[in-house]
């Protein structure tokens, strides 16, 4: 069974990841896929706010690392997928093509103000993925 969690480094995403790990712990032969999408719309500002292209890579790595450690701590097998593009589109594409059985996602991410204008990633993902989805508050 493939359980996926989409994260963006926010508190909310961390709670979603914890929930996904709990699910994976109790389901037989379940493993976890941690999905992180580097948003095209933030590409310029992310580069400007990192010292170098390498430190940008490190920053992204640091967003998934705590979750991998949590999973490892309770013996859940986990794999990381780093994607680039529009977060909701990339998550939907990945989840549908990889035949994920269960997706877990935080109810809102890092940018509340932007989401009020553009609509939230979790909302769009919920409408278009083919598998059951859990939205964690």
């Amino acid at each position, binding site marked *: 069974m493939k359980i996926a969690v989409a994260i963006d480094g926010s508190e909310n995403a961390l709670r979603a990841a914890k929930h996904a790990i709990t699910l994976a712990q109790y389901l037989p032969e379940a493993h976890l896929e941690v999905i992180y999408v*580097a948003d*095209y*719309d933030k*590409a*310029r*500002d*992310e*580069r*400007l*706010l*990192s*010292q*170098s*292209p390498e430190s*940008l890579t490190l920053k992204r790595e640091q967003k998934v690392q705590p979750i991998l450690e949590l999973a490892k701590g309770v013996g859940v097998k986990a794999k990381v997928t780093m994607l*680039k*593009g*529009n977060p909701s589109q990339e998550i939907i594409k990945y989840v549908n093509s990889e035949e994920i059985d269960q997706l877990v996602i935080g109810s809102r991410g890092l940018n509340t103000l932007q989401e009020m*204008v*553009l*609509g939230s990633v979790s909302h769009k993902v919920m409408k278009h993925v083919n598998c059951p989805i859990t939205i964690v508050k």
Partner: protein
Amino acid sequence: MYTLKQQWFGNVRADILAGIVVGLALIPEALAFAFIVGVDPRVALYASFTIAVITSFVGGRPGLISAATGAMALVLVSLMANHGLQYVLAATILTGIIQLILGGLGVANLMRFIPNSVMLGFVNALGIMIFITQMPYLLGSTSMTYVFAIITLILVYAIPRFFTAIPAPLVAIVVMTSIALISGVKLLTIGDLGTMPNSLPAFFLPDIPLNFETLKIIFPYSVALSIVGLLESLLTSQVLDDMTDTSSNKNKEARGQGIANFVTGFFGGMAGCALIGQSIINIKSGGRGRLSTLTAGVFLLFLIIVLGDIVIKIPMPVLVGVMIMVSITTFNWGSFKFLKQAPKSESLVMLITVAIILYTHNLAIGVVSGVIVSALFFVAKISRVTVTNGLDGYKVEGPLFFASTTKFIQSFDNVTENEVVINFENSQLWDESAVGAIVKVKQKLEQKSVKVQIEGLNSSSEQLYKRLT
């Protein structure tokens, strides 16, 4: 890196579609940048066409969109005001030559020396300056001007919520121009600034005296344009490298920018460079290859010729609205958080860069000063050397070089032992000054008949020490 064939034809359908979107997205800003410099709209539109087409062939980063830009426009404002268009064109040609030479010398490798705090200062000052340039058109004008500018601004932010196929600024311009024409409101239009081109750009030599006097006028501008253009182009290349997970040849990009500006000057266009916003639009629309940039340029020329007569009817306040949006997106709003979280020296470098640019109205001077200040901060930071006296002798921590030797020497002022061991395990000797400092300490101590023993030099330090003593 892909083969040239892949760079051109690896993504044909998506490249053409993305190129068309970018072509549309280039118009509003090119018009507005012309308006900032105070030149005929065609100077910026032709520039955008030639620069996009030429860089699609000779640029280093497939998918990068180069055209007339706000940063270059801001550099040209005072040259245009004091000397006129012919000097702007000559400066553009000279910029091309300088960039081509710098690219040949490998200038892109210097990009490493521009810290992100300087780049942040650059984009923030750029955003602020673009905003300021729009104020004269608003302050003290008619209330209708305000209404049109504000509605345009609202539209460019609201449209993408419902509709993303055509760039929002263009939709806003079409809507607002139609409203202005139908309602018959009296507003300043682009036509009041200059004529629109309905012909192809033609080759001509700038009408300037070819003498030392001219060079003296244009050279400082060309140097500034070269620095600003390369900084923005290489920054954009890095952003696209990251977005597409591919690498690109930055020195080739620098040379490509040079060739594009060189040629553009002869076709009556103003200097340009990479556009971060339009390049990101290109990638988001699916553009990846060189064909996308070429399509953008060619489609832009088609639009210029077809739409020439309509473009002159665009009301200025609408362009002001578009430019205010450009200034808001250019400014990096994460900078406030950066100021709070980053090391004090980096925050200071960012603020100094912004302050110098706003004070001198010169982006290049700000960037160069920022790099110098940050280099000094860096030297100060790594020149910390501590010497601790423990049971097994004096331990040196930190690199020993010209900036850190004074402190090292002073640490041995009050030695009371008869025998001293100096341990360099956690240090590194970098230059003559370092070796000289050790020699000096040794001499000083031996005069007081203290025995000195040097220990723990790593192999490169040891070599340097032996070579110089």
